[in-house]
């Protein structure tokens, strides 16, 4: 409870400070709108439906791309950790891709898929797949080797070592990877939408710039941050708490 109070107080002070600075007119109010102006824009955009539909479009894109990354990345990470031949070949490629910012894929994606949703999905997957894969791979590599040995001595068939032992055992690292991947997917989407794709929150940002409407830019930025906080705290937070409780890990 005390934490929530501190949090609210902190943001209240921050917004107050923002309001004071904006009111003193240090910068031009079109370039540095105050919190009231931003709140007003936020309300208008919300009311007109523009913000809601942009959010829905962006969320849809990121969820599809992220979903693909999860479905491919988790099994791939487990396989890379267990299969030496895959690790030295595909694993090296994956590490290479990891150092490549996902937006670098955009020119290729545009040529391959054209100016459409598939190009943006490609960039989102490129952004999150690798980070999920690597996190899961690391997690599986750090599992106590006795888990697999114990399962083998209990007569577990090879395939079920993956499904019944490695998959559940690496749940904590899958969660870490999923969280990381979500961040990357979201970033990749925003860069992609900013640069070219129609509709979505990224485009609303650009629109604000073109209309020289900084209150719209800030309003959209606040929405993006709020969405990020929401997924991090509510979805990942509760999953993490559940796993930590089950595993008996320190609750941070």
């Amino acid at each position: 409870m005390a934490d929530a109070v501190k949090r609210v107080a902190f943001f209240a002070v921050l917004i107050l400070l923002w309001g004071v600075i904006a009111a003193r007119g240090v910068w031009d109010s079109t370039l540095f709108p105050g919190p009231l102006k931003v709140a007003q824009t936020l309300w208008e955009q919300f009311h007109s439906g523009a913000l809601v539909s942009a959010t829905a479009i962006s969320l849809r894109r990121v969820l599809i791309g992220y979903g693909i990354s999860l479905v491919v990345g988790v099994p791939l990470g487990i396989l890379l950790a267990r299969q030496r031949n895959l690790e030295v070949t595909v694993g090296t490629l994956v590490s290479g891709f990891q150092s490549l910012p996902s937006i670098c894929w955009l020119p290729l994606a545009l040529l391959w898929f054209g100016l459409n949703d598939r190009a943006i999905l490609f960039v989102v997957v490129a952004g999150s797949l690798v980070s999920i894969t690597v996190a899961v791979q690391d997690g599986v590599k750090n599992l106590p080797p006795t888990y697999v040995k114990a399962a083998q001595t209990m007569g577990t068939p090879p395939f079920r070592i993956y499904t019944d032992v490695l998959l559940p055992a690496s749940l904590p690292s899958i969660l870490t990877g999923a969280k990381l991947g979500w961040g990357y997917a979201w970033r990749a989407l925003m860069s992609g939408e900013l640069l070219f794709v129609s509709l979505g929150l990224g485009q609303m940002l650009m629109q604000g710039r073109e209309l020289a409407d900084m209150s719209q830019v800030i309003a959209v930025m606040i929405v993006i941050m709020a969405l990020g906080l929401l997924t991090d705290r509510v979805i990942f937070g509760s999953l993490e708490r559940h796993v930590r409780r089950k595993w008996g890990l320190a609750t941070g």
Partner: protein
Amino acid sequence: MPKLVVKGLDKQFRHLDKRVSALSNISLEVQDGEFLILVGPSGCGKSTLLNIIAGLDKPDSGSVAMNGVPIKGPGPDRALVFQDGALFPWLDVQKNVEFGLRQNGYSRTQAAEKATHYLNLVGLIKVAESDLHTLSGGMRQRVAIARALALEPEVLLMDEPFSALDAITREDLYVELQDVWKKSGSTIVFVTHNVREAVTLGDRVILLAADPGRIQAEFPVNIRRPRHIDDVEVARTAQQISHAMKVGRSSKDNSTEQVVTFSG
């Protein structure tokens, strides 16, 4: 016919580009229902030997056969209790014990029944639905034992299962394990470096020596059960074995330079 026949096992490891003999010409037999202990200093290859019997490791030469059938790989007929328990933290106590059963085609209800029976046997039925991290170290090892026993293995293999526990918990478990062994009629091969533990538990103690890992001596233990680690007879036999171990080690020291010379 003996339950388990180990014949002429050899195993070498690479260490700093030198080949080190982990096991050299190991032959032994385990009788049905016997409680056999493998004891020896670290580096004598006792855990390697157990892993080979479990099928987790392969010998360079020699063979292991159970009921006359050569061992090809790991299997539930030779369930192994690990030093760290190797329990699965994503499952509760009951589900941990059911795990192996479910892998071997038992239905949900059959597995549950059997798990309940063995949790009862190790006195843990009250915590069946608990998560592992709420259990003490001793309770966890009892879960590990129940998990292995539930598979009703031909031979139960135990790799220093009590070495991470405190002395008091350990002593309780010595009594309990003897009791469980008597009730279940299992054959047990138990690895330890603790000579007193060996004498407290075993029908027979095989002493291994290191460099190369080999059988140095064998001690039948005919002390009446249930034994306690502080029994005078246990102490006396343990002393004999400890003495033999020291002799083995000093003779090893003399010969080390000729057998293995580590660089540097």
